[in-house]
Structures are given as structure tokens and as C-alpha cells.
């Protein structure tokens, strides 16, 4: 237990040192290793994730929608404290309302009646929260199974998992909260379902991106970083860097 805490502290110190407000994300932490891990993840995707996602896509629509709603409802538990940390009281209220309505009326989150009531459910995590505080992304790297990340986002993920996410506390850390209990299998099960659902939604996009990239690793990196920037800015507008290219 003490060793676990120690490694967590060492890991966090490394990440904190890697993150600074002016960090250039083009900078890689260890590109060669990341490219190796990226290849490993591609192999895992080809052999395991993609075939499962293709099978998942053949399931009836209500089953897929139910899975999406269920995993999304659980993720709301992490969004609530992050909305609060960002000072977004209105969105925290919406997320709380959404979780309560979907868990009860929506039968454990399988349905999404909250969206019909106009309750917004925007996903937030600590990486985004730190981003809104002006913390830079730090360097970029790839994690086995989990995929692309940055120093800031990994630091956020560790704190989310250990302190902010009630679902992770109950399942991964097996702590009882108000007589609710779970275990690591529940945690891995829900995260796997989230990954399969996401992969299933993006079968064609991934295929097309891989087929048409001359450096798939760099294309994935660019898309990950653009997406994170948009999430932090709560915007879907791309940055204008065309400058004066008036030929």
C-alpha cells in the first residue's frame, strides 16, 4: 500500500514537472517509445478491439443506445466535480440533474430522459479543468491500451481516478460509499464498454484515416490535441492559423 502511494507521488511529480503553462505540445516526451506503444495499440485494436466493435455494431440499436447511455451516465459522476472546479455552477446543476433523472426514470442510466428535459450533459475531466486554469498540455506521449495523452491529461487522469471520480472510488478502489460497493471488474467492464462503443461509432473514420495517412501516428496526435483543445474551450471551432496565405 505504501509502495503504491510512493509510486503515485513519484509519477505525479514527474508529470507536474513536465507540465508548464508555456509548454509546446509538439514536443514529445519520448517519441520513439510512444511510436512503439502506438504500434502495439494498433495491433491490439486490429486483433481485439476492432472485431469486437464490429460485432457490437451489429447489435440492435436499442442495445447500443442503452450501452452508450449507461456508460455516459456513469461518466457524469466525474463531470460534476470538474464543472464545480471550473466554476460552471449551471453545468454542474445540469449534470447532477441529468444523473439523477437518468439513474431513476431512465432505469440505471439505460435511457436518457434527461436530454428530453433539456438537461445538458457535457463531459469534463481534470485534464480539461487544468486546461481552463491555463495549465499547458506538457509533452505528448502514448499509453498502452489507453492511447494518446499529454503530461497534463495523465496527471488529471491519476487525480480523477484517485480522488474525484466516485465511480472509480467505489469500483477500482473498492471503497463503500453510502452502502454502494463494487470491484475492479466493474470498473474495467464499464471502461471497456465505453471504448467499444466509441470504436464502434468510428469504424469508418478510423479506417479512412489510417488508409489515407502517410504518418498515422502524427495524424492521430494532431486529432487528439485538437480535440482536447476544443473540449477545454467548450467549442467546436478550429483555430485560424492560415495567416496571410493569399496566393
Amino acid at each position, binding site marked *: 500500500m505504501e509502495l503504491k502511494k510512493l509510486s503515485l507521488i513519484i509519477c505525479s511529480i514527474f508529470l507536474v514537472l513536465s507540465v508548464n503553462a508555456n509548454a509546446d505540445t*509538439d514536443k514529445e516526451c519520448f517519441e520513439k517509445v510512444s511510436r512503439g506503444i502506438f504500434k502495439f495499440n494498433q495491433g491490439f485494436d486490429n486483433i481485439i478491439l476492432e472485431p469486437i466493435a464490429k460485432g457490437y455494431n451489429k447489435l440492435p*440499436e436499442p442495445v447500443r443506445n442503452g450501452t452508450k447511455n449507461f456508460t455516459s451516465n456513469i461518466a457524469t459522476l466525474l463531470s460534476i466535480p470538474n464543472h464545480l472546479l471550473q466554476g460552471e455552477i449551471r453545468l454542474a446543476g445540469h449534470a447532477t440533474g441529468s444523473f439523477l433523472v437518468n439513474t431513476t426514470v431512465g432505469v440505471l442510466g439505460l435511457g436518457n430522459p434527461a436530454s428530453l428535459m433539456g438537461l445538458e450533459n457535457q463531459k469534463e475531466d481534470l485534464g480539461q479543468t487544468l486546461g481552463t486554469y491555463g495549465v499547458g498540455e506538457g509533452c505528448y506521449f502514448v499509453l498502452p491500451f489507453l492511447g494518446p495523452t499529454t503530461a497534463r491529461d495523465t496527471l488529471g487522469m491519476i487525480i480523477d481516478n484517485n480522488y474525484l471520480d466516485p465511480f472509480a472510488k467505489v469500483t477500482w478502489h473498492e471503497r463503500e460509499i453510502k452502502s454502494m460497493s463494487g470491484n475492479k471488474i466493474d470498473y474495467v467492464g464499464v471502461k471497456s464498454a465505453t471504448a467499444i462503443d466509441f470504436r464502434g*461509432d468510428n469504424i469508418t473514420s478510423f479506417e*479512412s484515416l489510417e*488508409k*489515407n*495517412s*502517410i*504518418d498515422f*501516428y*502524427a*495524424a492521430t*496526435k*494532431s*486529432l487528439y490535441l*485538437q*480535440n482536447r483543445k*476544443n473540449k477545454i474551450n467548450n*467549442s*467546436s*471551432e*478550429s*483555430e*485560424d*492559423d*492560415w495567416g496571410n*496565405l*493569399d*496566393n
Partner: protein
Amino acid sequence: MKKLSLLLILFIFIFKIAYASNYSSDPEIFIKELVTDAINKLSDKNTSEDEKKNFIESVAEENVDINALGLYTLGELRKSTDKNNLEKYQKAFEKYFLKSLTSRLKDYSSNKFEIINAEKKSSNYTIVKSKIVASEKQPEIKIDWRVYTKNPDKPLIRDLIVEGLSLARTQKEEFSSILNSNNNDINILIAKLEEFIND
């Protein structure tokens, strides 16, 4: 007789392409007409693969600012590259762009497309916001079109931003990664593009 029918087919084909290219100069209507035209053509089961490919290429050559896109994706290197290499790069880029675009769009199946609005950013740029309506197979997809309007009579597409992700920027960063790991040697990038074209 055989020659005559061949000429007739060629004439109809050229006429169709010319007709397809004649879109409005208003950015919003331009995108609407272009996408509607593309959806009709690409989802038509009677259109052969070759016809689809020719259609995509002719529409792109006419309505996408491929030259500017090539320069943009090259980043700062465009300023220091000599004319000869820049021309070589532009030629390779155009072929690469058309091949990858054809590959992305050839298998397109009909989807409902809607224009949301258009936002004039400057005298040179208008962003046309649109969406592909959600279907059983896929969720709603927001697509913004960066339209270059320096010549108000002939708008040109410079970028597609899908759910906030700029395709031009992704391409630029992909090329930049190749250049960075090869001492900014443009010939390596050109070789990679040619490898893709000939694959």
C-alpha cells in the same frame, strides 16, 4: 458510328462536369449546391466507380483551393524552399490530395445534409456551418467549411472542419512530423507522397 457514339458520350460527360462545376458565388449556397450535387452523384447506384472518381476529381480541382492547401500544409518551409522543389511538391501534393479524397468519398452512401448558417470571418474567409443529420448508422456530424472568398465570384474551399477537427491542420501536422524527423528535407516528403500515390 462507334466514333460518333464515343464522341457523344465524351460530350455528355464533359457537359455534366461543366454543369456540376457551375455553383453559386454565395458561400452558403455554393456549399449547399456542391454537397447536394456530390450526394446525388455518389449515392447513385448506376454510377460506376470510375465515373465517381472522375466526378470527385473534377469537382475538387474546380472548387477546392488545392494550391493554397498544399502551401499551408507545408508550413513555414514553403518560405525557404526553392521554386523547383516547391513545384515538384505542389504536383505531388495535388495527386496525393485527389487520391485520398477519392478514397474517402467513393464509398459514400446517402446521408441527409443540412446547412446551419454562414459566418463571414473577414473579406477573405466565410465559415459555412453544416451537419450530416443523425441516422441509424451514425450520430449527427457537424462540418464547417472554410471558404476562401478573396475572389467573390469564385469561392474556393480551403478546409473542412469535422466536429472541430480541421483536416488541413491534421495534414499540416502530419507533414511537419515527417519533415522534423528528416532534417526538413522536402524531397523525403515528396517521396512519401509519391509512394502513397503509386501504392
